[in-house]
């Protein structure tokens, strides 16, 4: 399998692994190790002193994994920038998975705020991996702004519909000189297989993103399944693809849950789970 290179850094595995939705931290670590991935996504939230939880930092070996903080929960550029800076202050490498989702239900990315945030963060020295709709024009703007990848969605998060944005993703790939990551909407191995073979792009289901649906959450509760599916996807990785690509799995299902239970409102703290 060809190496994945993002922003000059090479990775033996093309997988990115999410850290949400595992039954325990031990299961998460086992799945991370089993996946072979070297990129691990995490989220930032307020510490809850009444219900203390471990920090993810206690479970992820920084020598082995690149910690990729996301800006989930951010509703505009300002909040996303704030989260990225907090992540960097935690001592992480300045990588950030940029997510700006003002819509609390569908978690669709805001193109204007995402571009605004990307421009600022790139200038501040961040390596920016933005989650976007499958919009080739936006992808070009982001590439010109200096992002390290673009991460178009295959279908809305949690829908498990597969790559419904195929034609647009094909255009994004054609025009991109940076890695293209399909980041949401898949729910079956076949989705990844089809996406991978025909698009020449690595496609991974954001497994945990699908967790709002019962069928998918059954899988995501079992870390072995998660790992096996990731491996399957990994095996499908495109020796035929000339482009460095990557994959991502995992969305903080807590966010979906928070939104769906109505705890989200502009007046409620955006960093509180």
């Amino acid at each position, binding site marked *: 399998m060809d190496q994945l290179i993002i922003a000059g850094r090479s990775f033996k595995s093309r997988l990115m692994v999410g850290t949400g939705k595992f039954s325990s931290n031990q299961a998460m670590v086992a799945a991370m190790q089993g996946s072979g991935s070297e990129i691990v996504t995490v989220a930032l939230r307020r510490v809850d002193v009444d219900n203390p939880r471990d920090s993810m930092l206690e479970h992820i070996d920084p020598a082995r994994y690149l910690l990729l903080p996301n800006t989930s929960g951010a509703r505009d550029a300002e909040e996303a920038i704030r989260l990225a800076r907090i992540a960097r202050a935690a001592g992480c490498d300045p990588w950030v998975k940029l997510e700006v989702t003002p819509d609390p239900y569908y978690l669709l990315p805001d193109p204007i705020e995402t571009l605004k945030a990307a421009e600022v963060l790139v200038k501040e020295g961040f390596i920016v991996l933005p989650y976007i709709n499958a919009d080739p024009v936006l992808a070009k703007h982001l590439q010109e702004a200096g992002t390290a990848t673009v991460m178009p969605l295959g279908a809305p998060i949690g829908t498990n519909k597969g790559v419904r944005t195929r034609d647009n993703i094909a255009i994004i790939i054609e025009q991109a000189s940076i890695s293209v990551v399909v980041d949401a909407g898949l729910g079956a191995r076949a989705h990844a297989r089809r996406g991978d073979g025909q698009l020449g792009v690595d496609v991974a289901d954001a497994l945990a993103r699908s967790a709002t649906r019962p069928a998918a959450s059954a899988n995501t509760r079992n870390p072995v399944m998660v790992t096996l599916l990731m491996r399957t996807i990994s095996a499908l990785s495109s020796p035929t693809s000339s482009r460095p690509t990557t994959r991502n799995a995992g*969305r903080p299902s807590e966010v979906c849950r928070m939104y769906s239970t109505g705890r989200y409102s502009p007046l409620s703290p955006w960093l509180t789970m």
Partner: protein
Amino acid sequence: MDIIFNGKPRELKAGTSIQELLDQLRLDCLQVVVEHNQNIIPRQRLAETDLQDGDVLEVIHFVGGG
């Protein structure tokens, strides 16, 4: 004095430093990032930064996500 800690009011003894508050709450400064009135406070300055009445403190850490 009263501050806003992670969105909620909290009463503190006057002159408490951020580090003292973290200690009271048994929070490891290596595992969290502190925003004080929207400014990120580097770890080495937590002990020297005293809280004032009305301050807004955010204490953030990494959790599972994707």
